[in-house]
C-alpha cells in the first residue's frame, strides 16, 4: 500500500507521460484458474469470432461479385474491418499447434504489393503467380476493396470476372485456413488447455501463452509500429503499416494490446490473468505488469486519427506508444523469468 501511495504521488508530481496510478494490489490466483480463465474468456471467444468474421466477409464479397453495387461494396468493407480487428484481437492467443499453421505469414502479412496484385487481376496471368503469397490474404483483399488514392476502387470494378475470381479464391483460402486453426482449438486443444488434468503441464501451457504474447509485442514493435515509423534508423514508410488503406491500423494495434492486457489482467471481474499468477511470487512485479499493459492501451487510445498521420505529424506520441509497448515487452520477459517458465525471449541468445 505504501508503495502505491508513493507511486501515485510521484506520478501526480512529475506528470510523466505514461505513468499512471498503479491501481489496487493484484490478488494471487493459482495456475489452473489462470489457464482456465484465459482459455475460456480470452482465447476461445476470439478464435470463434475470427472464424465468424472470415465467413461473413466471404459471404459479403460473394454478394458483391454477384451484384456489384455501392451498398454491397460498403458492406464488404465493413466485414473486412471486422475480420481485421478480430484477427488483431486473436493474434496474441495463437499459441499451441495453431501457431504452426502460420496464419500471419499466409493471411495477414503486410505491406501490400499493389502492382503485383493489379497484374494478377489482368486476364491470362499464370496460375502460379496468383498463388504467390504477396497477392493473397487479407492485405490483398484490403487493396481490392479499398484501393488507395492512386488506384481508387468502385463497385463497378467487381463486374470484372478476373477480379471476382481472384477475390473468391483468396477468401476461400482465408476461411479454410482460419477454420483449420479454429478446429485445432475446438477439437481437443482448447479443452486440454483449460483442463485440470491436461496432458500438458501447467508450465508448458503457461509458457506457450507467454511466448505468444511476447511474439505479438515484438511484431508490434518491429512490423506494425517501429519499422514503418522509422524508429530503427530507417526512413518513415507509412505504406508498410498494416491495414492503412482501410484506416484500421491503430484500431488493430489497440485490439492486440487489449488482448495482451486481458491475458495479463484477466478479461473481466473474477477472471484472473498472468499477473494474478505472478502475484503469488512478487506482488510488486504483478502490479507493474498490470500497469504497463494498461498504460500501453491507454496511450494507443489517446492517439487521434490514422496512425500514418500521427507518425508524420505527431511523432512524439508515436514514440510514447512505442516506449510503452517496449515496457510491456520487458515486463513480460521478467514475468517469464520470475514464473520460471520454459519460455525464452527468442531474441536473447545469451
Amino acid at each position, binding site marked *: 500500500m505504501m508503495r502505491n501511495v508513493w507511486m501515485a504521488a510521484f506520478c501526480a508530481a512529475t506528470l510523466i507521460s505514461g505513468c499512471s496510478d498503479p491501481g489496487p494490489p493484484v490478488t494471487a490466483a493459482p495456475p489452473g484458474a489462470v489457464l482456465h480463465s484465459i482459455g475460456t474468456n480470452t482465447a476461445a471467444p476470439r478464435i470463434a469470432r475470427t472464424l465468424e468474421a472470415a465467413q461473413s466477409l466471404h459471404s459479403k464479397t460473394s454478394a458483391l461479385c454477384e451484384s456489384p453495387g455501392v451498398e454491397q461494396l460498403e458492406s464488404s468493407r465493413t466485414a473486412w474491418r471486422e475480420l481485421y480487428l478480430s484477427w488483431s484481437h486473436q493474434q496474441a492467443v495463437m499459441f499451441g499447434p495453431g501457431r504452426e499453421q502460420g496464419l500471419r505469414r499466409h493471411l495477414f502479412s503486410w505491406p501490400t504489393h499493389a502492382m503485383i496484385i493489379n497484374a494478377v487481376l489482368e486476364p491470362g496471368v499464370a496460375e502460379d503467380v496468383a498463388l504467390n503469397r504477396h497477392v493473397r490474404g487479407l492485405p490483398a483483399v484490403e487493396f481490392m476493396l479499398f484501393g488507395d488514392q492512386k488506384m481508387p476502387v468502385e463497385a463497378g470494378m467487381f463486374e470484372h470476372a478476373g477480379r471476382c475470381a481472384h477475390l473468391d479464391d483468396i477468401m476461400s483460402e482465408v476461411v479454410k485456413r482460419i477454420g483449420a486453426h479454429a478446429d485445432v482449438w475446438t477439437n481437443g486443444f482448447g479443452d486440454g488447455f483449460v483442463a485440470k488434468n491436461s496432458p500438458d503441464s501447467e508450465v508448458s501451457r503457461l509458457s506457450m501463452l507467454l511466448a505468444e504474447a511476447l511474439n505479438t509485442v515484438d511484431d508490434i514493435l518491429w512490423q506494425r509500429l517501429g519499422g514503418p515509423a522509422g524508429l*530503427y*534508423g*530507417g526512413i518513415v514508410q507509412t505504406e508498410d503499416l498494416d491495414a492503412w488503406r482501410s484506416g484500421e491500423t491503430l484500431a488493430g494495434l489497440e485490439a492486440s494490446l487489449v488482448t495482451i492486457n486481458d491475458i495479463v489482467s484477466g478479461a473481466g471481474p473474477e477472471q484472473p490473468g498472468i499477473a494474478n499468477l505472478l502475484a503469488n511470487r512478487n506482488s510488486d512485479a504483478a502490479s*507493474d505488469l498490470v500497469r504497463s499493459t494498461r498504460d500501453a492501451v491507454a496511450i494507443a487510445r489517446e492517439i487521434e486519427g490514422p496512425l500514418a498521420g500521427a507518425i508524420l505529424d505527431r511523432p512524439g506520441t508515436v514514440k510514447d506508444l512505442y516506449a510503452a509497448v517496449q515496457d510491456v*515487452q*520487458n515486463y513480460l*520477459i521478467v514475468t517469464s523469468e520470475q514464473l520460471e517458465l520454459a519460455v525464452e525471449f527468442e531474441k*536473447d*541468445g*545469451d
Partner: protein
Amino acid sequence: MTDRQGPQNDSAASRRRFLRLLAAAAGLPAAIGTAALLTRPTPTTPTPIGPAASAAAGTPLRELESARLVSGFRGTAERADEPGFAILDGLGNVLQTFSTAYRLHGFARDPNDADRLFAICRRPGTELLEVSAGAGTIERQIRSGPGHHFYGHAVLSADGGHLFTTENDYATGGHGRVVVRDAQTLAPIDALDSGGIGPHELARFGAGLVVANGGIQTHPDLPRRKLNLDSMRPNLAILDRDGRVNDRFEPPDHQMSVRHLAVTEAGLIATAQQYEGAPDRYPDLIGLASAAGDYDTLTAPRRVRRLMNRYIASVAASAKPARLLATCPRGNAILAFDADGIQAAQIIGARAPNGVATLPGGSIAAVTTLSGDLLLIDAARARVVHRASTPYIWDNHLLWI
C-alpha cells in the same frame, strides 16, 4: 563512478584441489566420428544493396567471398529447434552446415591453422567440439570436467598452444573459472580464477586475458534460472600472463551484467552489457576499459538507450576506421560508433541482429540476424552494403576464421 578493485588473492589450495579433480575425472576427450553430422550446403539468396555493393571503404566485396565465417544456428524457419552451426563465405553463402544435439554459442580458431575451430555449447551445456573446417568434419567432442559447465566462449593463446574456456565451477559454489587446456589433446592442465561469477566472453589482452564476468550465478539443475540477481556483482577482469587477476572493473550498476567484449587495435576493451534491473529502466550498456585502468560507461542519448533495450548481443571492433559495432536484437538495431563516445552513434535498422564480426581489411563488418540474414556493414558509413538471406535462425555469435 567506476568501482575499480585491486587484484584478487588466489587460493592455491582450492586451485590444486580443482586441478586434481579435473585430472582424475576428465580423461581424454572422446572421438565421435567425422562426417556423420555433416549436412548438405544450403542455397543462399544474395542481395547487393545499391551502388556501394561493388566497393566500400576500399574493400571490394568480391574479395570477401574468400573469407570464411562460422556461426551457430538454433534451427531454420521450418524447423526452429534443430540446432547446429554453419561455415559461410564473406558474402553469406552457406558452405557447410553441421547438425548438433544442442545449441552452440561462441567459436575459437587456432591461430596456426585457420581450418581448425572450436565450437562451445551454450550455457549450461558441457560439450565442446573440435572442427576441421577444411575437411568439413567434427573431429572430436569433449565434455567439461565434473562439476563444471561451459559458458559458451573460448579463445586460444597467441601461439596456439593453449585453449582457454570460461566455465562454471558449480560443484564448489559457482566460482568462475578459466580452464586452460592443451590445445592439441584438449586435456585440462590448469583452472584459473576468472575474477568473478559467471565468466562469459574472453579474449587475449596483452600477454594475458580479459574476461567478462557476467555476475549471474546459475546451476545446471536449474537451467537458465538466475540465482543471484539481487546480489550479483559483474566485472571485467584482466588476467596477467601467469593467470592471476591483475585488475578488475565493476560497472556502476551491480545488475549490469558484463557479457561480451571486443579488444580494439588501440588496446581498448569495449564491453557489451545486459541489464537485469527494473524492466522499465533503459540504462547505458557499453563500457570502455583501457590497460591504464580507466573504465567508463559510454553515455548514449535516450533514443539509443531505448534501441539497446537492456540487451546487447555482441560487440566488435573494426580497424579501418577504428569503430565499434554493437548488435541490439531486442531493439532491432545495429549501432556503429567511435570509441570516444556513443552520443553520435549511427543506427542501422535490422530485424533482430545478433552476431557481429569484422572481416579482412577491417572496414566491413558482417552481422547475422535471427531472421536469417547476413548483412555486410560498411563501418565508416554505417550502411548495409550487402544482404544474403538464408533459412537459418542465427544464434549469437559470428567469427571470422
